[in-house]
Structure formats: structure tokens, C-alpha cells
């Protein structure tokens, strides 16, 4: 399992290759990459800054991955989240899950993202033409995380 909070960019192909290197038991890799959009809530976004809680962030991500391992057949996983200043088109977050079968890989990947969005201590501040603004948490993200309770 790999969890990283970093300012540097990441490469999906490199991370996938690292997960599968030297093993033949992986039948499925599911990945998600989140990027910075150039617009949000009706305003243009020139750039954004990702703040986090050093120490708690890494623990929180590791716990979320552990929860996913407890629910699905996860052989390995990688979670990378960038912090610092980012601009539209930049990568923000990467989740890759390796499993024997696609069902576990898809579900665990979505679960990790849904819980990351609502549990991991990151905050986005957007620079718009009207100035800087902290992004409000979305109710839809809470709903997305809640849906896993009944499964």
C-alpha cells in the first residue's frame, strides 16, 4: 500500500506499473485521477491552493485504504494527493486499486475516493476574478460517502 501527500505531479502509468511489477495474481486495476477544472460554481478559476493537515492527512488516507481492504479483496493500492498551488488541467488526486477481479477493484476505488472527499483533511482555496475563496463542502459528497453504509 502506498499513500503519498506531495507537491510533485504523478504519472498514472508509472503508478500502475509499480503495482503490477513482478506479480501475476492481479486481474484488475481500477484507477481514478482528479484534475483541476477551470470553472466552479459559475466563476473562472485561475489557480487553486490545496492546504492539508500534515500528519493527520497521511493517517486518514491510510485508514481509508485499510477500510477498503476490509470490505473488498484488495491486493494492493496507491493513493496520491497533491498539495500546494495548482492550476487548471493539473492532476490533484490519484487512486489505483489492484484486485483479482474487476468488481472489487471498481468498488474499492470508488469507496476510497468517496471517503477521501469527506474524511481526509484537505481544503481547496480557489483564485477567481473576484479574489480568493475557500471551496464549500458539497452535500452530494456526504451523500456519496453515506451510500456505502448500507452495502
Amino acid at each position: 500500500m502506498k499513500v503519498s501527500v506531495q507537491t510533485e505531479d504523478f504519472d498514472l502509468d508509472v503508478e500502475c506499473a509499480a503495482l503490477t511489477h513482478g506479480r501475476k495474481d492481479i486481474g484488475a486495476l481500477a484507477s481514478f485521477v482528479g484534475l483541476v477544472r477551470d470553472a466552479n460554481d459559475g466563476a473562472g478559476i485561475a489557480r487553486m491552493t490545496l492546504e492539508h493537515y500534515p500528519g493527520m492527512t497521511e493517517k486518514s488516507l491510510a485508514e481509508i485504504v485499510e477500510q477498503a481492504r476490509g470490505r473488498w479483496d484488495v491486493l494492493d493500492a496507491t493513493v496520491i494527493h497533491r498539495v500546494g498551488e495548482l492550476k487548471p488541467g493539473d492532476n490533484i488526486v490519484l487512486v489505483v486499486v489492484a484486485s483479482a477481479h474487476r468488481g472489487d477493484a471498481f468498488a474499492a476505488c470508488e469507496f476510497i475516493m468517496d471517503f477521501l472527499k469527506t474524511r481526509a483533511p484537505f481544503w481547496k482555496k480557489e483564485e477567481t476574478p473576484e479574489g480568493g475563496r475557500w471551496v464549500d463542502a458539497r452535500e452530494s459528497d456526504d451523500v456519496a460517502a453515506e451510500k456505502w453504509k448500507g452495502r
Partner: protein
Amino acid sequence: MLKILYFAGLREALGQSSEQLALPGGMGTVGQLHAHLAARGGAWEALAKTKNLRIAVNQQMAAMDAPLNDGDEVAFFPPVTGG
């Protein structure tokens, strides 16, 4: 001593990211600490006004009734918006 941390919009509203505070007598829970800090008035009212304020004690999410002990790290922050 308590180590208290503030993040994101709350950090900006308060104009500081952290402070050390001797655990005042009779302050047994996060909720009592929160009320004590908010009672400083002025910018500190942001602690009471932040919608859905989140709290972590020793880097684990906690509720207002969570107990406090000397040496704890307590963080206050708005709902998270990563990903």
C-alpha cells in the same frame, strides 16, 4: 499544555495557525475548550460561526463531548474539500 491548530478559512479568520494553551482548570472536554476560545470575542467568534465545524483530537476526528488531556493536539477546521 494543549497544542491547538486551525486550518483553511478558520485559520485565515483567526489570523493564526496554531497556539499553545495551558489546559485551564475545569476544561474537561473539547466543547468546553471551544466555548472558552470563542468567548475571546472579535475574530474568535468565527469558531462559533463556522458551519459544520470539524474537530480532531490527536489527529482523530472527535466530537464536542470528547475528553481532553494535558499534551493533546486539538485541531479546529471547516468541512474538508479535497479530492
